[in-house]
């Protein structure tokens, strides 16, 4: 087993532990903290895939902004924490569905005959990524910024409430 594989397994273990913490933790704040662990571990996975820019963006946006927002939402919607009420009665079916999805995924990943090679990571230079983003994909990029602005203005309007409330 090469060094890279060892690093991969360690980071993958962190990711899975974080993900399990999010869905199984009995305390909502622990869930949010496990989410931070999972998101940072995914940033490590991005680094292993040689996507440094995305790893950086992941740490900045997810590790910072998104988790803060989630913690805010938890704080502002806190009723008495009743551990029994965290999970709905359809839990067994949820487990069944999740296992079904998992087995389909693994079968598809292992069983498919992928076109092209699946052994070698081809690092994509940041310069090429920026070029593609601002030349080939310039229009979607601008639309994405518009989406972001509309969503944020909309959420301010929604959260502020009506006058005289």
């Amino acid at each position, binding site marked *: 087993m*090469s060094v890279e594989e060892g690093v*991969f397994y360690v980071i*993958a273990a962190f990711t*899975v532990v974080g*993900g399990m913490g*999010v*869905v199984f933790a009995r305390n*909502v704040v622990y*869930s*949010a903290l496990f*989410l931070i662990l*999972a*998101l940072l571990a*995914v940033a490590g996975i991005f680094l292993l*895939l*040689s*996507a440094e820019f*995305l790893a950086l*963006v*992941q740490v900045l*946006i*997810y590790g910072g*902004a*998104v988790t803060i*927002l*989630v913690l805010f*939402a938890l704080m502002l*919607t806190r*009723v008495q924490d009743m551990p029994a*009420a*965290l*999970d*709905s009665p359809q839990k067994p079916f*949820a*487990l069944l*569905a*999740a296992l079904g*999805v*998992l087995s389909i*995924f693994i079968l*598809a*990943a*292992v069983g498919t005959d*992928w076109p*092209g090679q*699946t052994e070698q*990571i*081809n690092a*994509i230079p940041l310069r*090429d*990524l920026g070029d593609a*983003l601002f030349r080939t994909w310039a229009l*979607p990029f601008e639309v*994405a910024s518009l*989406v*972001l602005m509309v*969503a*944020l203005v909309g*959420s301010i309007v929604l*959260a502020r409430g009506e006058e005289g409330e």
Partner: protein
Amino acid sequence: MIPMQHFLVLSGILFSLGVYGVLARRSAVLILMSVELMLQAVSINFIAFAVYLSPEAFVGLIFAVFVIVVAAAEVGLMLAIVLRIFRNRGTANVDEVDLMRW
């Protein structure tokens, strides 16, 4: 070298954890955290396909950027909507928000 299938299996595990969370949790915020996990799994898949299978076009990498943008917008809107529901109904439990149930 790490074979691509390792990344695909990891993202499958992450995605099914997200599916479980969405179906089993009742708090709207916890459900949205599970949705974040699923989005992360999708990003891993996209980037793995980009760097292994088609490094000339790397569309997957571009798509992962857009996934992150849309996720950021979605989290902002989620906070606003959940706050709104909480203010009107006094709960963030999705089982109790059944105004539109027939």
